[in-house]
Structures are given as structure tokens and as C-alpha cells.
């Protein structure tokens, strides 16, 4: 689903894509690799489908406008100079990028909402000047991109000046350990979170169980015996300093995106129909054709991709997501 005006205000660090409403699967592309402090430069054009250079973060400004920052080149901002744009409708001016230009005069845009859910990007510096994308001929993905991105006069809602904004795919490089005992989902999740933030840790599932149960045999014969018990993960996570919030609720797709934008996987507690429960991690999300998906790393069932709706209500057929434990560095 394209982002709405209300969504924009709560995006935070979540990356977005900017897609033409007119040209199929053509996205705004920004290559800021050559931009330095000397002045504007780089390349802004079009690309088929969205990759690294087609990802942006919206930076809200005090006047209600936004600056557009590259994800691939942090601190490089979209720049639009509408000076000299002809009145003939041919388009003109210059669109490129600039380093450390958050909130600069040529780097602020009022996002004008359109009735089809898209937005037009109007220059704050020169009202009436709009971002224009012509993606003719952009039918394959190339390293340099293609097409034209420049400015158009009085083109609010124009076919070449309207864009769908969507949350970009998010996937953290999170690895879940397989649970070493049948009831150690809590330990596998806690250890995996600790290893995600602190790869040098020597913590293991059995040493964590030893600590939790006040024993010293969970790494040996006791592992499958008295040590093999269920537990809640928030207590060991808290002790390790990895528990951000103990939320006795689920998260919306937007809230999931916010956690991932912070680089933070979270632990979800699922209650089975028979009353038992299980914990796992969510470490990614994406949206395709209007369907929201989550990436699940499960210490028992492995990695999977679920539709958000089925993950909430029918995980492994009889599981209902109920609690969320967010994490922190």
C-alpha cells in the first residue's frame, strides 16, 4: 500500500522508494557517490525496480516540508534547482544531489497529496516547480540508470510528476540458532539476539540455561533433563541489556518497520491453541502487490516468510501472536 500523508509523519528512519505512477516499475534513482563538499553534483535519474540507489529517507522540516536523503549515500540529499524552467511544458532546470544539505533552500519539498494516493514534489524555494520523471526506454536495469529527471512548471498531479511512496523492503542480517533442547526457544532467541549485537559473545544456550536455573549441568547430561524447561525471554534479555520494551501486544506493520529501521530485530511470543507458547524473532518485512510480509527466524521451524495477516493469527496453523519484546544495542 502506498504511504499516506499521515504515514509520512511517522516514518522516522524507515527507508522508502519513490515510484513513478506513469512508467511501470520505474523508480527515482540517486547516485551520490561522487558528491563531495565542493557543491552539487552526482546523478539523479531513473531505474527499473528498486535497489540500493533507489532507497531514501524523508527528513521532516519545521515548515512541514521534507528533504530527501539517499540511503546508499548517507547525508547526500536530493537537490532541485528550478531556475529557468520553460513554460512550454518541455521540462528543464536541474535535479541532482548535494552533501550535508538537509533543509537547504533547494533541498526542501512540499509533498502534495493526489487523489490516487500518490504525491507530487513541489520545490519550497520556487513554488510551482515540480519534480519530473520521464522513464521512457527504462525497460531493463542498468548500472547507470536512464531516463530523465528534471523539473516542470505548474505540474501538480501531472502524469510525469506523480509518485507512489512506499516503505522499502527491510531485512536485518540476523541469524537464529536452532534450539538445542525442545523447550529452549527462549534461550535460542536470547542468545541469537545477543550474538546479533555482540558477535564476540561467548554466551551459549546451555550456559544461559545454567544461569537461569542456577545449575551447572545444562551443557552436559542435564541439558535434556531438568534443564529442558520453558522460560520467558524478557528476564535474560533484560539482564543482558538487550530488552528495549516488554510489550504485551502485537505490532502493526508500521511499528515493525520502525523497529527494523533502528536495526533492531524483535522477539514475538506466539500462543498455541492448546495454551502453550513459543518465541521467535522477526527480522524483516516487505510489501509486494499490496500484501505485507514478515521475515521470521524461528529456533524450531527455521527461516520463513509469512503474510503479515497469517503470522498474526495462524502461525504454524494454530499460533496467535500475542506479545512483543523489542531489542536494543
Amino acid at each position, binding site marked *: 500500500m502506498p504511504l499516506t500523508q499521515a504515514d509520512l509523519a511517522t516514518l522516522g528512519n524507515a527507508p522508502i522508494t519513490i515510484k513513478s505512477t506513469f512508467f511501470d516499475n520505474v523508480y527515482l534513482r540517486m547516485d551520490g557517490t561522487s558528491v563531495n563538499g565542493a557543491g552539487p553534483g552526482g546523478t539523479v535519474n531513473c531505474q527499473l525496480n528498486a535497489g540500493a540507489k533507489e532507497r531514501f529517507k524523508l527528513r521532516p522540516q519545521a515548515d512541514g516540508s521534507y528533504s530527501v536523503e539517499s540511503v546508499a549515500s548517507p547525508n547526500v540529499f536530493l537537490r532541485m534547482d528550478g531556475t529557468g524552467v520553460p513554460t512550454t511544458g518541455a521540462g528543464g532546470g536541474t535535479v541532482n544531489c548535494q552533501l550535508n544539505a538537509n533543509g537547504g533552500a533547494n533541498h526542501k519539498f512540499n509533498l502534495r497529496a493526489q487523489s490516487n494516493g500518490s504525491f507530487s514534489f513541489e520545490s519550497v524555494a520556487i513554488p510551482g516547480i515540480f519534480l519530473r520523471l520521464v522513464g521512457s526506454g527504462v525497460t531493463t536495469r542498468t548500472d547507470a540508470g536512464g531516463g530523465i529527471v528534471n523539473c516542470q512548471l505548474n505540474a501538480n498531479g501531472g502524469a510525469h510528476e506523480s509518485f507512489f511512496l512506499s516503505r522499502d523492503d527491510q531485512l536485518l542480517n540476523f541469524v537464529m540458532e536452532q534450539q538445542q533442547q525442545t523447550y529452549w526457544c527462549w534461550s535460542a532467541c536470547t542468545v541469537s539476539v545477543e550474538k546479533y549485537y555482540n558477535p564476540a559473545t561467548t554466551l551459549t544456550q546451555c550456559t544461559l540455561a545454567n544461569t537461569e536455573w542456577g545449575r551447572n549441568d545444562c551443557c552436559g547430561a542435564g541439558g535434556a533433563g531438568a534443564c529442558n524447561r520453558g522460560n520467558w525471554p*524478557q528476564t535474560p534479555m533484560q539482564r543482558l541489556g538487550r530488552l528495549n520494551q516488554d510489550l504485551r501486544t502485537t505490532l502493526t506493520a508500521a511499528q515493525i518497520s520502525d523497529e527494523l529501521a533502528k536495526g533492531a530485530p524483535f522477539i514475538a511470543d506466539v500462543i498455541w491453541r492448546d495454551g*502453550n507458547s513459543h518465541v521467535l524473532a522477526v527480522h524483516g518485512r516487505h510489501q509486494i502487490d499490496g500484501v505485507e510480509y514478515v521475515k521470521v527466524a524461528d529456533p524450531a*521451524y527455521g527461516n*520463513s516468510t509469512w503474510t503479515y495477516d497469517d503470522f498474526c493469527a495462524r502461525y*504454524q496453523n494454530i499460533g496467535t501472536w500475542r506479545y512483543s519484546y523489542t531489542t536494543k544495542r
Partner: protein
Amino acid sequence: MPLHLPDPPSGAHDHVKSRLHTLAAHGGLHTKALRGARADQLDLSTPHQVFTLGADDIAAGGGLDRAEPAGWRYLVESAGQVVASAETMPAPDGTQRFANVNEGPFVDATDKAMKVVRKLPKLEAAGFELRLLRVPSLYLTALWLHSPAEDLLVPLQPSPIGKEGKSMSAAEFLSDLAEYARSRPSLPPPPPV
């Protein structure tokens, strides 16, 4: 008599395949095997219906007649190799809709168990239909060979009752699982927020 692979509901196969190709094309599949696979090389095989049982059903001595149908499962193949599973669940209108694609341990375990199952001498005597039985809260997943006369269960690795890849009678399987379910330690209430 060969193992019978049942026909999924009309349209389910094409729907799942389409979703899978879309996910692959958008980088939505993340293990090494699937990430490197071309969307048009991904295919579905081995359809089977998924059934679930609760641990409470098992502990109370409930039988396979308590198992509830939950959807359909396919194996996902790339260049002839099994790399994932994909499942459907019923939509409110009764159609089967794509629910998930899994790349976990039960995928490889299914592939291995299928090779064992196809060589079972009992297949010659009776026509068995392939099903999957899942008891999520006991972390038990098993192939379920169903016929009107007999049911066989093959626990997939990892199994809480062991016997991975071994064919078990329903009575033996349920007895082992019930004993395991009854021995499950209880979980205390969650700590206060």
C-alpha cells in the same frame, strides 16, 4: 501401489506458484538456495494436506480423528533440488491462499523421509495418501500416510520422540507422543511488566 499425492483444491497450485515467483522476483526469499534461484526455475511438487493436533488432544489420549485440516503444503524445487516448502491456508471464501514459504529443517527432513516412504513394502499392499501432521507446541512434524485401513506416521527430524524417518503405527506414535506431552514441564506466568 504408489503413494497417492492428493489433488489440491482448484487454483491453489497456480496461486502459490505465482506468489512464489513474485517473492523471488522481488528478493523476498532469503536463504542461499532460494536467493540464488531464478524465479522461473522455481517449481512446486509433492502436494499434501496439512493437519494439526494440539498437545492437549494428545495428552488426553486423542487420536488422529481429532486432527484438523489446516491447509496445503508443497515442496519448492529449484533445478530439481528441494529448497523450501510453501503452504496455503483457507481464506474466508473457502479458497486456499498463499500463507508462507519455509526454508527450515523440516524441508530437508521431508525430502529425506519421502525417499524412505516411497520404498516402504506396505505401500504395495494398500493405497496410502500423503499428509502432514503438525503438533506445533510439541515441535513435532510428521509425514502421515493415511489409508482407510491403516495410518502410518513418520516423524521428521528434529523430533521430540526421536524415530526420525522411521515408519510408526498410529498407536505407537500416539502413545510415545502422549507420554512426551504429559511430561512437559509447565511454564510459570509471565513476569510483571
